[in-house]
């Protein structure tokens, strides 16, 4: 089906007789295919839905007016999409220029599951789309040549699209990239090569995932916002715990000669019972389980943790705080020996 599209367009472009109406009709077909493609992929992002709704209208004025909105959407796309998908973060981005200024470009990231797999090895591509007539013709010619020369390994036909709806571009580009091995990459002005920024973004999101997990573990982290404050809280908490351990071991050292040997066997079993009860009452099993198989992956699977985190963590953290309060009360007395 996709190849049919390609040939159809190349034919139509070749003729150069395609009227605006026919072009628009073809574009509309692309829209519908895009919607099919997108609905097949399990993508619930609100931004995507907005885009879909938006490109139902081929209005240039709308495009201009929502230029800023798209910019925000474009920036919001990256993290949202990257959260939804696994490690290979390849996204197709399209840039389309505003009606008035050919140099300005917008970036819209669109990612579906199939595409990521298909393009997982390849570069991201950012074709520039110019909506002016002369530029259109230039693009058409260029794309004709490219599509004629080889179906595989040349850039998309999306460049030629006249009505300049970005999602249409993405749909065509997306559908095309599924079969292309090599994707022509054009760097945007003033931005580094996309592979690096992609990797950067992926890395940043991994880190923020882990920060969120730490936020759930460390009690009292919810009140502070921002990385610096959270890191402060985490540092304080770790220091607290270490100081507690130190104090307890000192206390233990003092009490050690008084430990009854017979009691210790009993106490070991008591610990097991205690922890079984404590853990069961804390209902924090969901929290603990992901910790241990992680050394293989090196990453945290938050999707399993998150639903249970907020409710289950409240109780144990509160109890820990009361315990620590009592401990510190005794510690202030204890350090005087």
């Amino acid at each position, binding site marked *: 089906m996709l190849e049919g599209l390609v040939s159809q367009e190349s034919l139509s472009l070749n003729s150069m007789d395609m009227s605006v109406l026919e072009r628009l009709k073809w574009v509309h077909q692309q829209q519908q295919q895009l919607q099919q493609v997108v609905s097949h992929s399990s993508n619930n992002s609100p931004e995507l839905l907005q885009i879909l709704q938006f490109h139902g209208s081929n209005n240039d004025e709308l495009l201009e007016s929502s230029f800023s909105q798209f910019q925000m959407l474009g920036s919001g796309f990256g993290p949202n999409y990257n959260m939804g998908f696994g490690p290979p973060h390849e996204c197709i981005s399209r840039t389309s220029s505003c009606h008035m200024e050919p140099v300005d470009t917008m970036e819209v990231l669109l990612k579906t599951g199939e595409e990521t797999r298909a393009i997982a090895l390849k570069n991201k591509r950012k074709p520039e789309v110019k909506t002016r007539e002369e530029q259109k013709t230039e693009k058409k010619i260029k794309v004709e040549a490219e599509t004629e020369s080889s179906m595989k390994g040349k850039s998309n036909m999306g460049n030629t699209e006249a009505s300049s709806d970005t999602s249409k571009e993405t749909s065509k580009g997306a559908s095309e990239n599924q079969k292309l091995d090599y994707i022509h990459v054009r760097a945007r002005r003033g931005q580094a090569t996309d592979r690096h920024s992609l990797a950067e973004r992926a890395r940043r999101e991994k880190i923020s995932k882990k920060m969120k997990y730490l936020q759930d573990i460390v009690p009292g982290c919810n009140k502070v916002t921002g990385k610096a404050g959270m890191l*402060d809280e985490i540092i304080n908490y770790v*220091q607290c715990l270490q100081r507690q351990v130190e104090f307890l071991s000192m206390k233990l050292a003092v009490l050690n000669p*008084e430990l009854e040997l017979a009691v210790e066997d009993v*106490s070991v079993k008591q610990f097991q019972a205690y*922890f079984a009860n404590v853990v069961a009452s804390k209902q924090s099993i969901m929290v603990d389980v992901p910790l241990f198989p992680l050394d293989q992956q090196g990453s945290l699977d938050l999707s399993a943790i998150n639903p249970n985190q907020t409710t289950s963590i409240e109780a144990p953290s509160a109890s820990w705080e009361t315990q620590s309060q009592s401990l510190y009360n005794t510690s202030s007395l204890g350090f005087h020996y």
Partner: protein
Amino acid sequence: MERQIINKKKRVFSLEPNKNPSAVFTRKYTSHLVPALKKLNMNKNSSKQTVKHEVDMALALSAQEFAWSRFLLQKLSSSSNPTTTTSSSSDGIRILERPDKEGGNEEGGIEERLRELKKLLPGGEEMNVEEMLSEIGNYIKCLELQTIALKSIVQDST
């Protein structure tokens, strides 16, 4: 405290003792620590440093699936008085002062804090940031369980 009283009344044992990771950790921890304390007790030369050593050793041995525990073991076996926490307690005073100076510059402040966090974690300075963050997560968990275990031991003997 009430929980302990309740537990003394009804002794409930877990049906699947190996499935729950915190129970597994605490069981291992106590099984390492208590005999070591017994041995120390019998030798009659227990200094506070040595108890700390045993405590850290028990922690490292009970959590061997993590990277930080390997580093901790190395430190413990290499030096005779290796206390990760005593060194950090001196760093603690520095930490408390630092946020006042670093308050304005958030970007640089984050780097500083990450470095401090790395210092707290045994072996953290040799890891990269992502790895360190996940290791910190389970280090915190293990520290919590360790404090619970130590408290129970101390409570039992008093």
